[in-house]
C-alpha cells in the first residue's frame, strides 16, 4: 500500500535515481557522485518501504471496529532490551570517536540495528491487545533480517575465534587442538544423542557457555598476537628473494615436476654429465647459445640429470635506476630456479629489458657449483 509518507520517500527516491542517471551521463561515466545518489535513492526507497510496511504506523487506521473495541488502545507493552542495546551502541560510537574509526563504524551499524528493532517493536505493540499476536507480527517483520544476520554473525564468531586460537598456537600443537575440538563436538553430540533425558535448556546453556568461552579465548588470543614464527615470517618475507648461489634450502625434493605440462617453452636447459646444454624448438641438436627477444616474457625450463641437486641461474645484465640527486642504484638482473633433485625440472620466466650487446657483462646461463660450462644468451 502506498501511504502518505511513503509517497514522499518513494518520490524522493525516484528523484535521486533520476539525478544519479543524469549525473552519470553529465559526467561522462563519473561514478562517485552517482553512486552516492544511487545510495540515497536506495535508502529512500527502503524508508518508503518501511513506511508502507508499517502503514505510517497506523496499524488499524481503517478498522473502526477495532478502534471501538479499544484493542489497540490497550497496549500489551513488553519488556524490551532495545533501549539497553541502543545505549551500548551509543557507547561504542563515543568510544569509537575517541579511539578508532573501526569501532565507530561498528557502533554506527549497531545503533542503526538497535533503533530499527526498537521501532519495529513499538510498532508491533500497537498492533492489538494480544501480546502473543503482537510478538507474531513483530517476528513476521524482523525475522527475515534477524535470523540470517544472526546466523551469519554466529558463524563468523565461531570461525574467527577458532582461527585466531589456531594462529596463536604453536605449529605442532595446532593439529592436536584441532583434533581435540572435533572430538569434543562429536562426543558432545553422541552424549546428548543417546541420553535423551538431557533437557534442551541444559544443552542450550552448555552451548552458550562454550560459545562465550570460545569467543573470549578468541579475542584474548587475537589481542595476544599470532605465534612468533608467523610474525617473523611476515616480517622477513623469506620467499621474496630466491637465493641464487650454492646455498642449501629445504623442500625442493619434488621440484615442480608438473612443469613438463608446459609445452612450447623458449628453451630447455639440461645439465647432464657436468655439461650444460640447451634444446631449442626448431633447432636441431644441443645448443650452446640461446637467442631471446628483448622485453619478451620468456620461459626457460631447467632439467637436472646430475645426481647432486643443482639450480640454474640466468644472468642478464643490470639496470641502473636514477634515484635522484645524482644517486644511482645498480641492480644485477638474475633469475634462478630453486635447487632441483635428479631428473627434476623447473621453469623460470624472465623478461630481459636490454639487448645483450649493450651490456658489459655477458648474458649467460650457469649452474653454481658446476664450473666451466655455460650457455650464452643473445638478446638482439
Amino acid at each position: 500500500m502506498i501511504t502518505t509518507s511513503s509517497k514522499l520517500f518513494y518520490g524522493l527516491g525516484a528523484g535521486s535515481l533520476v539525478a544519479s542517471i543524469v549525473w552519470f551521463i553529465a559526467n561522462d561515466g563519473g561514478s562517485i557522485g552517482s553512486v552516492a545518489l544511487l545510495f540515497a535513492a536506495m535508502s529512500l526507497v527502503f524508508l518508503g518501504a518501511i513506511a508502507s510496511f508499517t502503514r505510517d504506523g497506523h496499524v488499524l487506521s481503517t478498522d473502526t471496529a477495532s478502534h471501538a473495541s479499544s484493542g489497540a488502545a490497550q497496549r500489551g507493552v513488553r519488556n524490551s532490551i532495545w533501549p539497553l542495546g541502543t545505549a551500548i551502541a551509543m557507547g561504542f560510537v563515543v568510544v569509537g570517536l575517541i579511539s578508532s574509526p573501526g569501532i565507530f563504524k561498528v557502533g554506527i551499524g549497531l545503533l542503526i540495528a538497535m533503533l530499527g528493532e526498537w521501532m519495529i517493536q513499538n510498532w508491533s505493540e500497537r498492533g492489538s491487545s494480544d501480546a502473543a499476536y503482537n510478538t507474531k507480527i513483530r517476528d513476521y517483520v524482523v525475522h527475515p533480517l534477524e535470523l540470517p544476520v544472526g546466523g551469519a554473525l554466529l558463524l563468523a564468531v565461531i570461525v574467527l575465534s577458532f582461527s585466531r586460537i589456531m594462529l596463536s598456537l604453536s605449529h605442532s600443537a595446532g593439529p592436536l587442538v584441532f583434533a581435540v575440538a572435533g572430538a569434543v563436538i562429536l562426543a558432545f553430540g553422541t552424549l546428548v544423542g543417546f541420553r535423551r533425558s538431557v533437557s534442551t535448556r541444559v544443552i542450550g546453556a552448555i552451548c552458550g557457555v562454550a560459545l562465550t568461552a570460545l569467543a573470549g579465548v578468541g579475542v584474548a588470543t587475537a589481542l595476544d598476537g599470532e605465534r612468533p614464527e608467523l610474525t617473523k615470517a611476515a616480517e622477513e618475507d623469506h620467499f621474496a628473494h630466491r637465493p641464487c648461489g650454492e646455498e642449501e634450502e629445504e623442500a625442493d625434493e619434488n621440484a615442480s615436476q608438473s612443469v613438463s605440462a608446459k609445452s612450447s617453452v623458449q628453451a630447455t636447459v639440461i645439465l647432464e654429465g657436468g655439461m650444460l646444454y640447451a634444446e631449442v624448438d626448431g633447432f636441431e641438436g644441443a645448443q650452446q647459445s640461446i637467442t631471446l627477444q628483448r622485453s619478451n616474457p620468456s620461459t626457460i625450463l631447467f632439467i637436472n640429470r646430475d645426481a647432486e641437486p643443482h639450480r640454474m641461474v640466468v644472468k642478464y645484465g643490470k639496470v641502473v635506476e636514477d634515484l635522484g640527486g645524482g644517486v644511482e642504484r645498480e641492480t644485477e638482473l638474475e633469475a634462478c630456479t630453486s635447487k632441483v633433485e635428479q631428473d627434476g625440472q623447473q621453469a623460470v620466466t624472465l623478461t630481459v629489458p636490454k639487448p645483450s650487446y649493450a651490456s658489459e657483462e655477458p648474458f649467460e646461463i650457469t649452474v653454481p657449483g658446476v664450473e666451466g660450462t655455460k650457455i650464452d644468451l643473445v638478446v638482439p
Partner: protein
Amino acid sequence: MAIIERPSAEIAVAGAAPSGVKPSEALGVFKRPAASTSWKDWLVTVDHKKLGIMYGVAAFFFFIVGGVEALLIRLQLAGPEGKILSADQYNQMFTMHATTMVFLFVMPMVSAFANYFVPLQIGARDVAFPRINAFGFWCWLFGGIFLNTSWFLGGAADGGWFMYAPNSSTLFSPSHGIDFWVLGLQITGIASLTGAINLIVTVLNMRAPGMKLMRMPIFTWMTLVVQFLLLFAMPVITVALFLLSFQRSFDATFFDVAAGADPLLWQHLCWIFGHPEVYILILPSFGIVSEIIPVFSKKPLFGYPIVAMSGAAIGFVGWGVWAHHMFASGLGPVSVAVFSMATMAIAVPTGVKIVNWIMTMWGGKLSFTVPMLFAIGLVVQFTIGGLSGVTHSVAPSDTQQTDTYYIVAHFHYVLFGGAIFGLFAGFYYWWPKIFRKQLSESLGKWNFWLMVIGMNMTFGPMHILGLQGQPRRMQVWTEARAGEGFFNIGFWNRIASLGSFILAVGVLLFIINIIYTHKSKKVAIAPLDPWDARSLEWMTANPPVEHNFDSIPTVNNLDEFFHRKYAEDPNTHEVRQVATAEEVLAELNAHPDEHIHMPSRSYWPILVSLSLPIICYGLIYNRLLMGVGAAFLLLTMFGWAMEPSTAPDDDFDPPAPGEGGGHTKELAPLG
C-alpha cells in the same frame, strides 16, 4: 471440477488473530501476490506459459538490438576505409553483436519455446520448479540489461565474444566493458543452469502416463539434450569467467604471462563451453523442424529413433571437438589430428538428420505453409553451413580459413540459416497456439523470401571474401588490397552489406505481420488445430488454460494427437479421419481431474534476481553497494525459503460448485 489456484481470505497467520483484526490488514503490504490480469501478474507469475512468452518478447527485443549492431557493422564495411564507427566502437559492436545474439537472443528464445511447449508436449501441468523457473527468467533479463548498460557507462566489452586472454585483462582493455560482460554473463549463466535443472527434471519426471522417452516429440528430445549440454557447459564457462573477473577485479595472475601463465588455458575453458554451446543453439531448431516437417508432410518423422539418438550423439561427441577452434593456436600435431577426426565424426549424426528430414518429406503430402517454408529453408541452408564445416574440419585447410570471413559465412549459415530459421518456423507454427491468431500467410511468405534472399546475399559472398583472404574482426578494408577485376573483395563486401539490409527488411516484415495480425479486424481467431498437428500441445484449449490439461491424457503412441484424430487401416494402410480436434479435446475434458493445485505466484523470484545486478554494479563501482546487494539477497532468499511453493492445503477455498475457481482474495503468510 475445481481449479484451485488461490488461497482464501479466511486464513489467519498460523493461528487465531484477535477478533476484529484481519490479518490482511495487520500485515502490511507484503502479501503473497494474488492472481490478477493486470501487468503486475507478469512480474509475479510462475506459470511456464507466461514465462515462455516473456522470454520470447524480451529475447526478440534483444534480437533487434543485436540486429542493429550487425547492420552498423555492415554499414562500416560497405565501403573501403569505413568511417561510420571508430575502431573502438567497431570492436565493441562485434563483441556485443555476438554476445547479444548468442546469450540474449537464441538461447532465451529457445528457453521461450522450451518453457512454453515442453510441459505441454509431455502432458504436464507446469515445470518441476515453477519459482526457480521465474527466477531464471528474471536473472536472464536483468543480466541482459546489466550487460547492455555498459554502452552508457564508458563503453561495452571490446575483446570479442571469445574474449581471449590476455587481451581481456585490464592492461589491454581498461574500460569497464569487459567487467560488465563477465558479470552480466555470470548472471545469465545462473538462468541457464537453473533452467537446465528445471527442464531436465520436468522431462524426466513429469511425463504423462504412457509418455515413454521414445514417444516424446523430437522438440522435447532436443530440449532434453540441450539442457544436459547446458548443465555441464555452464560451470566450465563459470570457472573461466571467475578466473577472468578475479584477474580484472582482484589482480589475480591467471592470465599474466610475465608470471608464467599460459593464455591457452582461457581458450580451452572457453571452447569446452563454446563448442557445446554451438549445439545448444542449433539442436532446438532441429527439434522444431522435426516437429514441423512431419505435420506438413502428413507423415511421421522418418527414422524417429535415429533422429532422437543422433541428437544425443551430437550432444556427446560435441564434448570432444572443442579444440577445432584452436587449430592455429599451436597445439601439437597429434591433438590437431585427433580433434580433426572427431570433428569429422560429428558430421555423421548431423548428416543423418538432414537425410531423415528429406526422407520424411519423401512420399508425403506436402503443403508449403510459412512454417514449412522456413523448415525447408533450414534444411537447405544448414546443409551449406554443414558442408563448409566439413571443409574446415580438415585441419590444414582450416589453418587457411580460420579467422577469415569464410568462418563468418559458415557459422552464419549454421546459426542464421539454421538456428534462426528454425526459430522463425517455430514462431509461425506455434503462434496460433500461443496467441489464438494465425499470422498472415501472405505476409509470412514475403517475410520468408526476403529473409532467404537477404541471408544468402549477406553470408554467401562471405565464403568468397574469406577464401580470398579477408580476415574477420577488421574495422576497415582497403581498396588497395581488394584485388583487381570487378568481382573483387570490395564488390563482395558491398553485396554483403546490401544483403544485410534486405535481411533486415525481412525481419521487419515479421514485426509488421504481428501488428497486422493482431490489429486487423479481418484476421479471425484461429481454429483449435489449424495445421492438423500431431503432438500433445495441440490437444489443449486455445490458448491453453493455466493448468494446461483438465485431465492428463494417457499416451499410447508417438504422435498421440494424430492417432486420436486418424485411424489407419492395418492392411491397406489407408488413413482416414475419425475425429476432429474439437472432438478429441472435448473427450479429453469430459472427465476433468479434481483439485488441481497450481503453484502460487510469488514475489521472491524477481526480488532475489534483482539483487544480483546490484551486487555486480557494486563490484565494479563501489564495494559498499555490493554489501547492500548482498544484504538484499540474503533477505529475499530468506523470504523465499520461508514461503511454501504452494500455499498449504487449508489455505484454499473449498471448491465452489460450478464456478471453477472464483476470484477470491488471498493471503499466505510470508514468514
